[in-house]
């Protein structure tokens, strides 16, 4: 498949086919169409129902900041402070466990020779195609037996046990690009394999780990299906379930309030994305991404 060598630098190389005014215009129009819904969402967060449904105007006539204040209060007795804390408690350990387990597994595959390696690697790749839906019911029964339902263990356990092959695969590809001489000389110098990994390879793997971490963060943060199934009590709701609940809990939906909380929900992703966009975009460009 695709190697993770950084080839994206080529983007800035001059290409014969130069873009003209018309091209820039088309780029702008596509951009506006793509981003308009998000800008509209942000503006709708300040509007009343009358404005949301009555007009096409983008900017609100009257800026209702109280949508955010009211929305933040949440429902069923819990505020968004709680829901954000829950989300953090769900997402951060999941991300960190994923990075630890996939580093170990990637190291095992990329730097060691052992019997059945080829078979095991094929299984690793094949598991990328195993749909979540076909294992979700037995997993639910298993977690139920462990009394893990309504906790975040159903997120931590697959992360710890490296169940999403995408991450070790991504790191294996990256490790293949790091010369073996580096760790082999450390090994000959008397470093154990684990020490070699921690002291020699880990610092070099930072960019790949960062990309992998970002994607696991994003996917866990956005995940709805698993949260819906495994988290039952409002006290433990992550943001995704809370946003959905804001719709169901009222007889007349104040959409401005719902959109305010939708904005609040996507804001961390936007900040993260702009702070680390290089890792996002290059992570996809070089590893053959899903989603």
């Amino acid at each position, binding site marked *: *498949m*695709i190697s993770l060598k950084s080839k*994206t630098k080529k983007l800035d190389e001059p*290409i*014969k*086919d*130069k873009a003209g005014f018309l*091209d820039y215009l*088309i*780029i702008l129009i596509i*951009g506006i169409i*793509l*981003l308009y*819904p998000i800008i*509209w*969402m942000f503006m*709708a967060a300040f509007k009343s129902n009358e404005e949301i*449904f009555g007009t096409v105007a983008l900017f609100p006539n009257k800026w209702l900041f109280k949508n955010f204040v009211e929305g933040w209060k949440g429902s069923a007795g819990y505020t968004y402070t709680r829901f954000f804390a829950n989300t953090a408690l769900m997402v951060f350990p999941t991300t960190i466990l994923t990075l630890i*387990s996939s580093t*170990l*597994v990637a190291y*095992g595959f990329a730097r*060691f020779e*052992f*019997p059945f390696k080829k078979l095991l690697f094929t299984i690793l790749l094949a*598991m990328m195609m195993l*749909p979540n839906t*076909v*294992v*979700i*019911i*037995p997993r639910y*029964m*298993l977690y139920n037996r462990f009394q893990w339902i309504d906790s975040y263990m159903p997120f931590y356990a*697959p992360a710890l*046990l*490296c169940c999403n092959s995408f991450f070790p695969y991504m790191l294996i590809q990256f490790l293949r690009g790091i010369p073996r001489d580096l760790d082999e000389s450390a090994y000959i110098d008397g470093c154990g394999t684990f020490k070699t990994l921690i002291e020699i390879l880990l610092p070099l793997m930072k960019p790949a780990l960062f990309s992998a971490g970002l994607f696991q963060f994003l996917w866990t943060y*956005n*995940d*709805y*299906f698993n949260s819906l199934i495994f988290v039952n009590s409002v006290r433990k709701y992550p943001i*995704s*379930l809370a*946003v*959905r609940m804001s719709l169901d809990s009222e007889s007349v939906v104040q*959409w401005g309030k719902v*959109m305010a909380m939708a904005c609040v*929900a996507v804001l961390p*992703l936007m900040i993260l*994305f702009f702070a680390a*966009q290089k890792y*996002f*975009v290059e992570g*996809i*460009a*070089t590893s*053959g*991404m*899903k*989603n």
Partner: protein
Amino acid sequence: MRKKSFTKRSYQAYLYLLPWFIGLVVLQLVPFVSSFVYSFNDYTVGSKLDFVGLANYVKLFTKDKDFWNSLKVTILFALYTVPGKVILALLVAMFLNRNIRGINAVRTLYYIPSLFGGSVAIALLWRLMFMDNGVVNAMLSKLGFGSISFLGDTKLALPTICLLEIWQFGSSMVMLLAALKNVPKELYEAADIDGSGKITKFFHITLPQISPILFFAILNQNIQELQNFTSPYTITGGGPMKSTNVLGILLYKEGFSYFKMGYASAISWIEFAIILVFTLVLFGSSKFWVHYADE
């Protein structure tokens, strides 16, 4: 080549693979087999397995009116979104594959919708925008068109949801753009000398060169979209008249609202079978259009 045998180093390797191997057995292979077994049983939370043979499947195929509809809707969902997303991604990537100032910024901005893949917040936004009295209809009427019941019409609800998925073409685009940049320029120069036209160049150079990545994109999108749940569940809840009731929703309701785990497992295996068939067809077709450089 080092000789592969059970050395001290190979035992260490197994130690590194241990977390994955436990996960593979406990959370993947055993559940995979279990759900197959469940599908032949009457089974709910807290009860014992009660073997019923093919009864769940027979009921699905002959008695459950929702099933055939859901099957159709799921396949349509994938047939609309996957080509829509991939073709749009390819077109935009090809358009951007030229000397553009600030290309990185453009790439970043176009990627933003993909950031929210599967996000409830964005699905709610879609629901609000496409309501009968929503902003899209307000715009249409400003432009002199009649209002359209996007989410209330059984024919339009599914395409409207698919539009949300297609809107998130950014990650496929970034991948394809990287692939396009890697096509050796000499190939195009040689084609220019031969006097080949744009279309010839596309089919004889561009497409074969980027085909492995295109294939990978289609394969992944397909697996994802056949399992989609969040968008239809949040935007229409499966309606109107079950016209967006994908298998994922059916499975969720049977399994996690009624806790009919055996029946839901049968649904999950049908879903798995569809994904498998689509995947095998794709792999089968790859012989004819996917070209690997090292072959």
